[in-house]
């Protein structure tokens, strides 16, 4: 699999050296979404001093990075990628990330909450809430402060979750990186208010108006490499509370009576492996994934265990600085 990742990414990088016209035009819908995202990214580059792209390795990040490569072509990516590594990501994700950074000669910055790591914070003993708070939310805040970013791209979409539906494209954060949902700046036309004072920052969501289906169709049309975990394959999993958790390494404590079994699974969303449930699937191609999507009966974030902590949980996390 490792070899496959590197080959496909090398081929991908080559495409940007001498771009060829598309074989068939994008649908007007995807074309409009692409143009809008590119416009947003160029606004950020032109108006901010220290922009960064928060790169999470998943499919939305893949699309966001692809759009950025297109937006600034023939210039190379004019800002760094920031990854927040909770130390519990799928192994394959890290391989993919590193291959991509190398092929495109990207400036990749990885933030790990070393204090949390030293304390051995993990989702098994401390629960998903504390783990997310320490290893993701705090780590992200640390990265923002350490590097003094004044604008950070995130791959969130409005169709993902209720509190996301009301998020601005340019979402203001105060000096404490907090989000005040009641006091958001009105956002009209494509006329984005980018003004901030020292210490404040803006989170920018160029994929705001994309749906999950748009993302998949775009990945297909543009032939964007994604982490192979999105495709169905026999993988060792255990079943917990009806969720299929992949045994990605030996840190997953098995409960009495649990034995990992090989099952055909894939992931609709990628995060920390103990917190990201797989779905049984036979979809091994993008076509099949899209078809599966169309008949899917559960929404994407249901595989995200952290959203179920309590009602309104996403909004709470966001106020505290989570993406």
């Amino acid at each position: 699999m490792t070899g496959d990742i590197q080959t496909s990414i090398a081929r991908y990088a080559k495409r940007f050296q001498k771009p060829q016209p598309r074989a068939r035009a994008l649908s007007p819908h995807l074309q409009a979404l692409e143009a809008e995202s590119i416009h947003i990214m160029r606004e950020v580059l032109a108006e901010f001093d220290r922009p960064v792209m928060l790169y999470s390795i998943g499919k939305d990040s893949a699309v966001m990075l692809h759009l950025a490569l297109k937006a600034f072509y023939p210039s190379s990516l004019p800002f760094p990628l920031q990854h927040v590594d909770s130390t519990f990501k799928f192994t394959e994700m890290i391989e993919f990330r590193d291959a991509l950074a190398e092929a495109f000669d990207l400036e990749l910055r990885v933030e790990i909450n070393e204090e949390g790591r030293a304390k051995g914070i993990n989702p098994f003993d401390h629960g998903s809430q504390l783990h997310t708070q320490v290893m993701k939310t705090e780590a992200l805040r640390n990265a923002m402060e350490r590097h003094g970013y004044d604008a950070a791209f995130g791959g969130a979409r409005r169709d993902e979750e209720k509190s996301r539906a009301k998020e601005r494209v340019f979402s203001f954060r105060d000096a404490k990186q907090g989000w005040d949902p009641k006091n958001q700046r009105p956002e009209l036309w494509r006329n984005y208010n980018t003004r901030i004072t020292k210490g404040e920052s803006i989170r920018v969501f160029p994929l705001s108006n994309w749906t999950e289906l748009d993302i998949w169709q775009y990945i297909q049309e543009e032939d964007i490499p994604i982490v192979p975990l999105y495709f169905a394959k026999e993988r060792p999993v255990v079943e917990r509370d009806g969720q299929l958790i992949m045994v990605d390494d030996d840190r997953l404590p098995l409960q009495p009576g649990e034995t990992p079994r090989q099952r055909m699974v894939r992931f609709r969303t990628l995060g920390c492996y103990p917190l990201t449930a797989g779905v049984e699937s036979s979809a091994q191609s993008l076509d099949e994934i899209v078809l599966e999507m169309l008949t899917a009966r559960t929404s994407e974030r249901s595989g995200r265990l952290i959203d179920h902590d309590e009602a309104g949980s996403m909004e709470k996390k966001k106020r505290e600085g989570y993406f």
Partner: protein
Amino acid sequence: MTHQERTSRAVDNTSAAGTRGVLRFLTCGSVDDGKSTLIGRLLYDSKLLFEDQVNTLERDSRKHGTTGEEIDFALLLDGLEAEREQGITIDVAYRFFSTSKRKFVVADTPGHEQYTRNMATGASTADVAVILVDARKGVLTQTLRHTYIARMMGIRHVVLAVNKMDLAGHSSGRFHEIIAAYLKVAEGLGFDSIIPIPMSARYGDNLTRKTDEMSWYTGPTLLEYLEELDVSSSVAAEPFRMPVQWVNRPDLNFRGYSGLIVSGTVQTGDEVVIAASGTVACVEQIVTADGYLDAAEAGQSVTLVLDRELDISRGDVLAASGDRPEVSDQFAAEVLWMSEDHLLPGRSYLLKIGTTTTPASVSALKHKVDINTFDKQPCTKLEVNEIGLCNIACARPVVFDPYHQIRDMGAFILIDRFTNQTVGAGMIRFGLRRASNIHRHAMDVDKATRARIKGQSPAILWFTGLSGAGKSTVANIVERKLTEAGLHTYSLDGDNVRHGLNRDLGFTDVDRVENIRRIGEVAKLFVDAGLIVTCSFISPFRSERQMVRELVDDEEFIEVFVDTPIEVCMERDPKGLYEKARAGEIKNFTGLDSPYEAPVKAELRVDTSELTAEEAADEVIEYLLAREHAK
């Protein structure tokens, strides 16, 4: 059919929905007219909800719902905790769904009056407005307000959704009564179409399906109507416009201008004009990451390479040379005010239009609109949610077209300079007087050339400080020394300005602002002539000094804060002004009964109680030498 064939066919079908282009609509109306319910129901009936979403919905309905045992569809949309608790929608939510025929983006906007700004936000990108009316209550103030905003924001199609028909006995008579009342006001506004539909959002009647209860209604359901509506934009037929977002310079061999084409089309070989400067050039390449294009049109993000080297930067607009946009520093615009702090004529705001941001102020407030009657009323300020026609004066010329011709070229926001909040939304009607349609002629001799033959870099030395601080004294010595060194200078101060150029101005706040504006413009001309200009004015307000600073390039404005303690100034009192002020003979005297806002980051600070005037002047000269204004 094989599995593979079935898969590709299904995928093709979903792509087909995308070929139609997306329809963006917003729902609006008064509180409790059922907006959120309508969208929730649309999603539910189009089978677009996932199982876990339905489960959450059922659980939430029992917890927060207002519909007893039944599903409360509104809960699907009211995303933020606060509004769920209050049972109202306080912010715009964007929802996405598609049918086999089309993709939709819905903006669900608030009904409460205090959230009108959010409705305008939703309307700014919408093609259609679905305006809800409660069949029992009929047309309300808020219905008309939203209709007016929809029209002002350039929406061409309205659906009058007469909702809760089940509570009005499904009465055809009641339906037609409401239509008549609505049309009486809305008909004159000039929409392309107004389609009334009777419905019960809660039960889905005439939303996605027809029902027996309203068999008297023969028109389309809401979904049918939205699927079929043609909103193909005419913006591609307008003249070419592309605001430059960013100059793309990967290396010395490539220089491209990146932007989103907001109207018209462009082909390689086309002659374009850089609107503000009047320079023309031809398009050599249209560059994208999908290869070179021969042509591109409105809605595409591209990078244009021109056939000659020009000084183009962010904020410039590339436009069809045969059909140019207007260039003016003054225009008339409709402004929707969105802040609790009132809009006051004369106050300085930041205006962002396209890729340009410039200081601007309202020079005249012509009238505001009474949204109940659409009548014009005289006014002296705009309060939150009020709409007024304003004359706007910008610190520098901006490039625009009327809003109703090209939305993106005529839309602007106003930003508070201190809180950075977006406080107003504006739509340009037309340019005002002198500057409009006068296209600058690009001159062969420019600022750099003029400065070069003088062997200096031009600058404004802006001396600010209290009366008696020693501004003119220091400036005088600085000018003498520069001249002795063979440099070319000029001095502006109260004496040579107040008696001529500004003799029509008094000392009211408005006149003081105009005084500094003119001085700034004159200083700018001297800078353009290649001179080092000293300006000595109390100029007590940061915003005015900022206004002048923004007239010239970054390096060219040097603020010298003559920071002499007021006790020293009062003791000196060279013109006897402090004495008069203390005796009450002069009002609004800076430092006594009128504030002096000290510079936060002046380039230079000199204290003439510690330094002699000569020493202070030397510090200024040092600064100039260090930055090679003088060599």
